[in-house]
């Protein structure tokens, strides 16, 4: 599973800490999601998609893409 969280975050000029505060998680958790070490729960994935005004499947996608 890959994701575009880092790209979307950087496009908005946000730091990992900024995004972490917006999503109410730790900065380490944002880093772990971006590097693929941690798969977020469905509620958190939905929150991430909502924050970037994207569908979940536009942010998180299979490795083949």
């Amino acid at each position: 599973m890959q994701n575009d969280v880092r790209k979307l975050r950087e496009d908005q000029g946000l730091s990992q800490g900024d995004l972490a505060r917006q999503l109410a998680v730790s900065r380490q958790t944002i880093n772990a999601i971006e590097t693929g070490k941690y798969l977020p729960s469905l509620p958190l994935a939905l929150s991430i998609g909502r924050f970037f005004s994207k569908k979940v499947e536009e942010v998180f996608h299979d490795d083949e893409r």
Partner: protein
Amino acid sequence: MTTSDKPRGRAYGAALSGLVIGAVLIGIELSQGASVAGALGGLIIIVLYSLGIFILQNRSETISTLAGRPVDERWTQINTQALAVAATFAAIVSLGGFAVMEALGRDNWQFAFMCLVVAGGYFGGLIWFRWRS
């Protein structure tokens, strides 16, 4: 639906638990005739640990988890995984201790009891969470 970073559980829960456990242990030690200095020695270690994680829990996500207050869902998962590792070690030591004591022909009821507790806790957990989900 929330992924709140507000730590769950009470901030003073771990510290209070440590103090209660320390008080119980010091009571047992004193009731068995231990010196006050000796009994206090054990209490001091528990109190220092409890106070340490109470004071530092907001400075580190790891310490916050040690204090029983994981800051978000990832730390909750890490905490659960660490508990599973600890339970696995407890099961291995209990079974190993039981087998060794059995082989040596020594009393092994303590290890048998621990095996019962670990196995009972596991099966109880399986049934409980299966029923809840």
